[in-house]
């Protein structure tokens, strides 16, 4: 017997028995009895009584008698009779018998529904649950990239598909956390703890399977993504089989119905191999930690260095690129380096140099000229040196060369001067722009490849209104992610897709202690107020309440205490610094230490 029919029959019988009590207290007994039967049926269907829960059943049903009395006798019946509700003291006292009636009704209903339920269990056995087959996965969405674009897209997909178990989502990322890049310079400048600006993907995403791994190829015709053999991939019914049948036994394959390319960008050294080998990248959390440790290391070595020329090279820091990343890093490193000086008495303050090399005539080209000038002047006042309209042409351990022929002796070069879309795109048969980004249509779909989508830094996305390519910034990537997730959801459900359009909100850039520049919807701000805006806006955008609290605490600590100069073990085996002789041995020693401690050696 259908379980609901069985419950309804039990409810009707129990309700009829309880209805006698109602009939006794109602002016019109037939109405009371009928209501008893009706609510008995509803109670029976709605509340499945667990076996031998007599006490629970009796008192739960009796409790519900009170609101039923208020609903029926105090409000509904008078209204149906064309009267006002009887909710005055006198009216409710006049209804007292029915209150008792409903309570007794509840007691009888609960007792009998439980008793008949237990009896039915003995006679007919347990309720037959209709066999609901486990939902089959019909749509597999694979997102490549754990940056802003990929993670935000996964979040919107989770919202769009909700608890729909027929859709499986997988996100492949080389790191297990989302890095909040606007605060990366503060990590390099020892203002924030490194992990506080990264949010674990596993706690951010609620139903998306997270695979920490490296993508080494995509077969768009076979609809498969190949992951490097060192990838630890969780077993899933949909990818396990693929892995067994992999052409490359050591690699893992992920099959998809929709593939989202959110691979981001990498540093572009414009073909300068020497620079690439000697410069620090400034893209990842590991890069920021490495730069911070390296700066502290330079100060330690400089403090013990007696040769003035070598010492100067140690405390000279060159940053290539005057965009947001370069300017913020230069401002932050300048504060960090000069703030540390008090602890290194053997380093003359005039020897510390932070040099920003930029190929254009002004820094921060994305901002208006006035704000860029303000930033430059402010940073110069605080000790940053600018080499404008200058290019870096070469680098070697201990020095960098500029296109003017000038050579700057330095142990530290950080590259922020150029980025290029992820090189994996070069291996895909998709149309690319001159930067190497995948060209997509207005709906963020890759033309000619059904089910393949791209967004963020690795895509050239046309704006629906202007037709112009959108800038590869996080601000646009977040909005693209929302549109893309909506379009995948729409396509799965056969609905029309939407084209992407977004008007930039503005830009923010912090350029040193309590100073920033901001341009919001055409309005320009600079100085302390802009800095407060920067902190307020980015703290709000930092994912996760816990991270917000941690960063806020870091900022408060920084008001009262100096920045931390404790060196942590550099676990990077391919450390790139412009080290002096002896550094290799030190790096090896550090590597041995990290291995001995079982530290993870990076991906």
């Amino acid at each position, binding site marked *: 017997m259908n379980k609901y029919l069985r419950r309804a029959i039990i409810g009707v019988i129990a309700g009829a028995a309880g209805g006698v009590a109602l009939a006794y207290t109602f002016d019109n007994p037939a109405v009371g009895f009928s209501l008893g039967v009706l609510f008995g049926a509803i109670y029976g269907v709605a509340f499945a009584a667990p076996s031998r829960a007599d*006490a629970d059943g009796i008192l739960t049903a009796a409790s519900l008698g009170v609101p039923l009395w208020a609903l029926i006798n105090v409000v509904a019946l008078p209204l149906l009779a064309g009267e006002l509700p009887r909710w005055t*003291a006198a009216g409710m006292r006049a209804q007292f018998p029915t209150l008792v009636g409903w*309570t007794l009704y509840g007691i009888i209903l609960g007792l009998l529904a439980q008793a008949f339920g237990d009896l039915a269990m003995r006679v007919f056995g347990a309720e037959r649950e209709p066999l609901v087959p486990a939902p089959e996965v019909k749509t597999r969405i694979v997102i490549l990239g754990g940056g802003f674009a990929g993670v935000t897209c996964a979040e919107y997909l989770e919202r769009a598909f909700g608890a729909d178990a027929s859709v499986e989502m997988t996100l492949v990322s080389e790191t297990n956390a989302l890095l909040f890049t606007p605060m990366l310079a503060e990590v390099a400048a020892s203002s924030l703890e490194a992990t506080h600006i990264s949010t674990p993907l596993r706690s951010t995403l609620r139903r998306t399977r997270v695979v920490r791994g490296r993508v080494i190829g995509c077969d768009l015709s076979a609809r498969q993504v190949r992951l490097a053999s060192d990838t630890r991939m969780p077993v899933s019914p949909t990818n396990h089989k693929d892995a067994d049948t992999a052409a490359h036994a050591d690699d893992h394959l992920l099959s998809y119905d929709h593939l989202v390319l959110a691979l981001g960008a990498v540093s572009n050294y414009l073909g300068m191999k020497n620079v690439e080998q000697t410069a620090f990248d400034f893209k990842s959390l590991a890069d920021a930690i490495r730069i911070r440790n390296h700066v502290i290391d330079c100060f330690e070595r400089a403090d013990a260095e007696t040769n003035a020329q070598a010492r100067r090279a140690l405390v000279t820091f060159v940053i290539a690129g005057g965009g947001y990343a370069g300017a913020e890093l230069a401002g932050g490193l300048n504060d960090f380096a000069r703030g540390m000086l008090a602890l290194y008495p053997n380093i003359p303050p005039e020897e510390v140099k932070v040099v920003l090399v930029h190929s254009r005539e002004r820094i921060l080209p994305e901002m208006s000229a006035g704000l860029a000038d303000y930033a430059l002047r402010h940073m110069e006042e605080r000790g940053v040196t600018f080499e404008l309209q200058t290019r870096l042409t070469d680098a070697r351990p201990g020095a960098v060369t500029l296109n003017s022929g000038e050579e700057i002796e330095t142990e530290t070069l950080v590259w922020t001067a150029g980025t290029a879309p992820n090189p994996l795109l070069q291996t895909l048969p998709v149309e690319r722009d001159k930067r190497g980004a995948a060209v997509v249509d207005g709906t963020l779909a890759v033309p000619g490849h059904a089910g393949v989508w791209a967004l963020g830094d690795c895509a050239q996305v046309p704006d629906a209104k202007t037709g112009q390519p959108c800038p590869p910034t996080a601000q646009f990537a977040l909005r693209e992610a929302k549109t893309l997730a909506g379009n995948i959801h729409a396509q799965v459900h056969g609905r029309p897709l939407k084209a992407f359009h977004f008007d930039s909100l503005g830009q923010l850039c912090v350029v040193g202690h309590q100073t920033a520049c901001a341009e919001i919807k055409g309005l320009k701000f600079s100085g302390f107020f802009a800095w407060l805006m920067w902190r307020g806006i980015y703290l709000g955008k930092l994912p996760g309440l816990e991270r917000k609290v941690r960063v806020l605490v870091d900022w408060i600590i920084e008001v009262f205490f100096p920045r931390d100069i404790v060196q942590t073990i550099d676990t990077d085996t391919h450390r790139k610094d412009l080290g002096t002789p002896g550094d290799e041995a030190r790096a090896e020693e550090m590597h041995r230490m990290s291995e001995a401690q079982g530290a993870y050696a990076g991906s």
Partner: protein
Amino acid sequence: MQVPEQRLLRIVVAAVLGSLGGILYARALDAPPVMNILLGAVYGVVFASLFARRATTPGAGLLWGLAFALALWLIIPANLMPMFAGTMRQAGMLDAARAAFPALVAYLLCFGLPLGVGAGTLQAFFARATEENPSIMNKATRFSLPRALVTGGSAGIVGGWAFGEWMRQVDFYPLVAGLVSSTSPMIGKTLHFTIAVVIGATFGLLFQRDVRGFGSSLCWGVGYGIFWWFLGAMTLLPVLRGEAVDWSYTRGGELFGSFVGHVIYGLVIGLIYAIANRLWVVFFYESDPLNREPSGVGERNLRALAWGAAASMTGGLLFSIVMYETGALPNVASIVGGTSYALGFGLHLVISALIGMSYGVLFRREAPDAGAGVAWGLVYGLVWWFLGHLTLFPVLLGRQFTWTIEAANLGLPSLIGHLTYGAATAVVFMLFERRHGAWLALDPRLAAREARLQRPAGTPAPALWFFLLTLGVLLPIILG
């Protein structure tokens, strides 16, 4: 001891306790002893058969016992007895219930209290014999005597302070001082706080295992407060002062202010106890990495606040119909110095949202099904009738709150509104919780964690709902 033997022992003990309760009942109400002893034994057997299995601790037993006694009173002294005696037709059901009010007090104290606590103690004794050593993971759910005494005692002090405001207002302290043959308000105040600490500590001792979230603890506190009105204000106080015990409904009506005070006192005890208990558990157990939850407390609370605010809109709109019909909206507007319906409606929705948010934070994971959700919502609505309508609303209007039966009479339409608001808010909130639960069900680990944190079946929550809702609605009607 084997299960059948335990069952037999439970029945025998309950019959004996019921008989003893019958003796007490006969003495208290000057009733025929033999019949009441027999009746008590029958009550004991019925309680042991239907309820005793759920009475797993003395505290749980107390609630089941009180609810059982209240149901018995409704069926027997308030209905069957006057019906068979023929007095109901002459006086009507309300007057028959008023006449049977002494029996209500007697049923709760002579049958409900001993049967419940006795069965709970016995069951706890059985359970203790078979209890295994706890793992570090479930230490937080184990009974802890220091936690019960410290958190309960602290809650008692704060609750005593809240109740003390009313006692000061109506010059009740000299009456309490009479317990030690004094009339000094200071001695009365000292005694009052001593009693408050004792009641708070016993709250911790009795209910530590059953209260889970803030909301359920608050409701448990209200139930315990009402119980102490019957035991303390109506019974022990006159006994200790050497006066005759008066359990009539007229005396109950005179002590209605004390009844509301006990409700507020219990509410504060329950809430403060839950907060102190939570801090204790977080500090000593949940901060242990082995017991950590994946998502932080802030995230969970923010979500609950948002759901509560959204859910309260349904309840608030339904409540506003009652307020419009009864002309109460201008009164609400007068909180901010206005008189218009529109302002009153807007302010009412803001207050609804705030109370809804509090519901979200307090009652997360308390309702495993729709029935439980509605019941918690109704109880919360009832609590806000006592706290909001009878207490805070007059204060916000710049008046002194009056916990009189006359004030309750005037507020009865609002009681219907509060109940409707609570039920509707709870149902919508439960839908939000279910929707979120469907997400979590996709991951078996998260689903298992959620199931662990949900209030399980078998706690005395149904007894509490019945006790609170029935008495909360019945008493203002009977005592008026």
